[in-house]
């Protein structure tokens, strides 16, 4: 082919020499055009095709030429050092830390894909390791190792660069700052913005909050990490983070200030109201809420029982393992576990009550002050009244004056299982219990009620009568007596029917031990009961006939004055005839004489 082209060129030059200039120019021009066209036809398609294929390479070559680091990167894993490292680390292997944690140190090419550090060689970050030495360093934990490696990041990314970002500013100089790799990854290192891109709201949040993230409020560590798995398994799995954390979005991340970790929890629980206003309303009437409103921040809020992100189904809270109440009421739960209910629950009986069955989940009331407990018992034991009526005279009156636990919990002084008599003061018209503040205001300081909170047998029959008169003058009041266990704690240790108090004589005798602890009870503002110790003599005093008209147990709380009156009646009943007989005997002679006189 090349010989042909040379011949053609020689023929062209020879022809030019032979012909005249004008003629030659015309002929040459024609020939030149023809030659050009020949070349175009010959090479054009080839060159065009090549150009189209090579065009995209132009910017790449341009970028590679401009950024030497990237140009180098393509060869990062190809470097001698990398090849050497990968010689071992391309095989499955793990490193075990002092605390037993294991970390895979098996690396593959894909682990570096997309890394902004692909130009760097291994030892740029793993500075302890060199081509000629590989010290076997011991790290306490995975985190310890990650923190150690993160020191290398500062070699290139100095504080000034880091602090320019508000996120970094917030984190980077903190004592418990997470290692860089928590957010940016370890080998496939990316900008966080890249990681967040094209994600839905929750995924966006979890980009950071899915990591081991925490902050601190006044020295208290507050975890900010959320496990995606917990959300997925919770009843709120279909909700976006911003449904509850309404102030936040992919564009807004306001800085919120809280005085304490507890205040943060309380504030966050407010979000529940948006979807559960009914439950919140119930909660507002509860003892928990009242205690909280009274300034006790340890009173539970929504997330204390339901947790914040792993919100489970109600059924979970009704299991021995999942019931949240035990976290605060551990001693009570222990009593419950020992009870007939707790044992049956552990045995797998699903119909057995647990905390919320009696105390309710949201409208939790101080059990001592209401009839809710009795209602709860009778709610399941519907036949209770009927069964009691079979052997217990005036069963209804008994059930009204004696709590279920007072009979159905074995006596147990250690846990407050002794019986006590609570005398509740209430308004005669409305039946509403009188409040502590109201009672103390009416009675005044001179009553010295506060002294009776601790010391026993404090309020004497006389004082009791005075208290009654003072309160009654203000607005008619009545005292309702109830036999209860001394402490609510023991009330949870309900036992089998066979262990219950059944003998009438256990109560109905003057020397019964069930009437030796007497308390006057008024309501505290949080719904709990304030008690003042009362002299047990009050129960059998004539002074209490009116105030305690509705509390009476044959034999045990009998009015003692009547005993003496009875004695007087009998002595009188015997002595009048005895005196009469005596006089008759003494006057026998008189009658005989008179009879004789007649006859």
């Amino acid at each position, binding site marked *: 082919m090349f010989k042909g082209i040379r011949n053609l060129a020689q023929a062209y030059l020879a022809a030019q020499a032979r012909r005249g200039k004008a003629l030659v120019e015309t002929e040459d021009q024609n020939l030149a055009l023809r030659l050009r066209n020949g070349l175009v036809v010959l090479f054009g398609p080839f060159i065009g095709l090549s150009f189209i294929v090579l065009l995209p390479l132009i910017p790449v070559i341009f970028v590679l030429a401009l950024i030497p680091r990237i140009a180098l990167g393509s060869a990062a894993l190809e470097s001698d050092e990398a090849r050497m490292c990968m010689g071992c680390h391309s095989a499955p292997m793990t490193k075990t830390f002092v605390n037993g944690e294991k970390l895979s140190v098996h690396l593959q090419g894909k682990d570096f894909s997309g890394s902004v550090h692909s130009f760097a060689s291994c030892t740029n970050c793993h500075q302890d390791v060199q081509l000629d030495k590989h010290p076997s360093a011991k790290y306490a934990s995975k985190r310890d190792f990650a923190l150690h490696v993160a020191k290398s990041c500062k070699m290139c990314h100095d504080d000034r660069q880091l602090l320019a970002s508000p996120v970094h500013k917030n984190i980077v100089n903190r004592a418990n700052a997470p290692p860089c790799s928590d957010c940016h990854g370890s080998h496939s290192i990316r900008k966080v913005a890249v990681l967040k891109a094209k994600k839905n709201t929750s995924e966006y949040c979890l980009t950071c909050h899915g990591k081991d993230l925490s902050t601190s409020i006044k020295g208290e560590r507050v975890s900010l990490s959320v496990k995606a798995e917990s959300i997925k398994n919770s009843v709120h799995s279909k909700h976006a983070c911003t449904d509850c954390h309404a102030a936040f979005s992919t564009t807004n991340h306001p800085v919120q200030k809280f005085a304490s970790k507890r205040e943060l929890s309380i504030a966050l629980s407010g979000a529940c109201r948006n979807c559960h206003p009914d439950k919140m309303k119930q909660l507002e009437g509860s003892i928990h809420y009242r205690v909280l409103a009274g300034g006790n921040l340890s009173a539970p809020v929504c997330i204390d029982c339901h947790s914040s992100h792993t919100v489970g189904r109600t059924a979970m809270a009704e299991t021995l393992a999942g019931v949240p109440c035990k976290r605060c009421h551990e001693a009570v739960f222990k009593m419950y576990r020992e009870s007939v209910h707790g044992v049956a629950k552990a045995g797998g009986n699903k119909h057995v009550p647990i905390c919320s069955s009696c105390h309710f989940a949201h409208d939790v009331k101080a059990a001592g002050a209401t009839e809710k407990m009795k209602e709860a018992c009778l709610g399941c034991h519907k036949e209770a009244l009927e069964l009691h009526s079979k*052997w217990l*005279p*005036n*069963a*209804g*009156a008994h059930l009204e004056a004696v709590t279920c636990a007072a009979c159905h919990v074995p006596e147990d002084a250690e846990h407050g299982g002794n019986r006590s008599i609570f005398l509740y003061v209430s308004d005669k018209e409305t039946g509403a219990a009188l409040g502590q503040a109201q009672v103390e205001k009416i009675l005044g300081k001179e009553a010295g009620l506060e002294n009776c909170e601790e010391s026993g047998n404090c309020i004497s029959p006389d004082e009791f009568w005075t208290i009654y008169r003072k309160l009654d003058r203000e607005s008619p009041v009545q005292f309702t007596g109830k036999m209860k266990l001394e402490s609510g704690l023991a009330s949870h240790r309900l036992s089998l029917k066979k262990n219950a108090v059944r*003998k*009438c*004589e256990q109560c*109905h*005798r*003057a*020397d019964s031990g069930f009437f030796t602890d007497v308390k006057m009870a008024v309501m505290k503002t949080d719904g709990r009961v304030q008690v003042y110790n009362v002299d047990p003599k009050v129960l059998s005093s004539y002074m*209490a*006939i*009116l105030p*305690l*008209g*509705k*509390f*009476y147990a*044959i*034999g045990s*709380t*009998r*009015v003692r004055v*009547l005993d003496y*009156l*009875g004695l007087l*009646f*009998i002595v*009188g*009943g*015997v002595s*009048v*005839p005895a005196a*009469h*007989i005596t*006089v*008759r005997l003494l*006057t026998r002679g*008189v*009658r005989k004489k*008179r*009879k004789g006189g007649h006859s």
Partner: protein
Amino acid sequence: MKRIYLHPGPIRLWHWINATSFLVLIVTGLQLRYREAISLMSFEQAVDIHNWFGFILLGNYGIWLLYYLLTGKIKIYLPPANLGKFIKKAISQAKYYGYGIFIGEENPHNSTPENKFNPLQQTAYLQIMALLIPLQILTGLLLWDMDLFSRWINLAGGVKIVDTVHVFLFLFFSSFMIVHIYLATLGHTATAHIKAMITGYEEEHESGH
């Protein structure tokens, strides 16, 4: 010796049922109230017996009331129209028990079926039969079923008040029974009145005037 048919059959029956009920109710009542000191029976037994005899007493009161109302003899309980005379008679009866009886005077009152009671008896029995026994039965009923009669109990001021009335009357009846039995021996012989309550016939000395 004069024999007067003073106590008709139904009244004799009523009296002895009453007497038995009173005794049983007093004993069981004492047992209920003083369990720590008395152990004649269990508390449950005492409650049961007390309730049963309470109802017997109630039914018996009905028999008494019905008999006296139907026969019209109820008027023997009623003081006469002339109250002044009644008071005078009552004083002379009291004088007899307090003085005359010792010196061998005759009882100023002679029982007849139409004028059975002396003024003191009339006063006492009227109060007992018209007021105290109904009150005792009523308070007993309320205490028997406190659930059924809770409204009444509350109206009275509470169970303690109802029970106090019940116990007070119980004490009164207990002492009354002692005096009643003693007075029953004050017939012309010690057993005359008692026999009369069994046979119906009261024997009286022919006084001749």
